[in-house]
């Protein structure tokens, strides 16, 4: 083999090696960037789901309005929810599979609310279905009018509103 041919072969090998090296670097950088993008997308989706919960909590059907003093954000009127519960007119109204409100604090024994045990219960299920599909939850304040010795006062507890929905 002549020296010229050797040089060309050497250069070809060198070019292949450098191309491979840069291709590997590019794959590494792209995969790194892509994993970050995936994470951001997941966080955004999670936030959107939570915003859907907040949107529901602040809708006129759920929100406290001005029943408990000034207008409150993320505040659910428990009496309203109990009145709406199992109302057939609202079964398809919110376009979600299920809505559940679970009291977090003060902690009490798990008991599903119905007209017989309310307000001595801690889980309000809007529909008697199990949570299915995708779900999202967010913190809310669950308020109702309570009465002690004939005097009425506002009682707000900490709860989590959970919704489940089918992905389109």
């Amino acid at each position, binding site marked *: 083999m002549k020296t010229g041919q050797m040089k060309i072969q050497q250069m070809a090998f060198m070019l292949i090696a450098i191309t491979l090296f840069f291709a590997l670097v590019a794959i590494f950088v792209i995969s*790194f960037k892509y994993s970050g993008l995936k994470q951001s997308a997941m966080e955004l989706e999670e936030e959107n789901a939570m915003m859907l919960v907040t949107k529901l909590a602040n809708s006129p059907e759920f929100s406290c309005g001005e029943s408990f003093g000034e207008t409150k954000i993320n505040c659910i009127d428990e009496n309203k929810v109990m009145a709406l519960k199992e109302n057939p007119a609202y079964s398809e109204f919110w376009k979600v599979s299920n809505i559940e409100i679970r009291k977090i604090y003060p902690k009490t024994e798990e008991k599903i609310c119905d007209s017989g045990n309310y307000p001595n219960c801690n889980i309000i299920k809007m529909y008697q279905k199990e949570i299915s599909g995708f779900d999202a939850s967010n913190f809310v304040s669950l308020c109702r009018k309570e009465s002690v010795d004939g005097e009425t006062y506002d009682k707000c507890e900490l709860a989590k509103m959970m919704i489940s929905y089918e992905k389109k």
Partner: protein
Amino acid sequence: MTRKFKNAQEEMVGFAVIIIIVAVVLVVFLGFSLKNKQEKVESYEVDSFIQSFLQYTTSCEDNFEYRSVQDLIFDCSNKKTCSGGEDSCEVLDSELTGILEESWKVEEGTLAKGYELKIMFNEEEMLSIEKGNATQNSRGASQDFFKTGNSVKIFFTVYT
């Protein structure tokens, strides 16, 4: 032969230099990326949590009504006592501790590895509750409000 060997050596050195430069660029890139990942993330969930616990009705009653956490912060700053004789600051502390323990469980296998709640009244620390470990990944939110010229700032961070 010696000349050929020298040429090969030079080419190897050139290739090594390229690899070193690319490695340095990669290390710098990785360093920046990891640094960004350790930043605190503003969380919508934590923000909702603060808004919700501020409305919580505590067991502290004054002559007219049961006080919310938000009211109790101002009562505590004025060193007020509840009608039952309890110190408003102690009630605030115990209620918030209970709320945090039930809302953010710091246990093996749970998402939250720790949390930190800080309430500042007129730029001075009024209350601080911490639990678990402060890891590099966190999500947090803050909220401030004013009443009769006094400012309250609430910071809450959850370490995951």
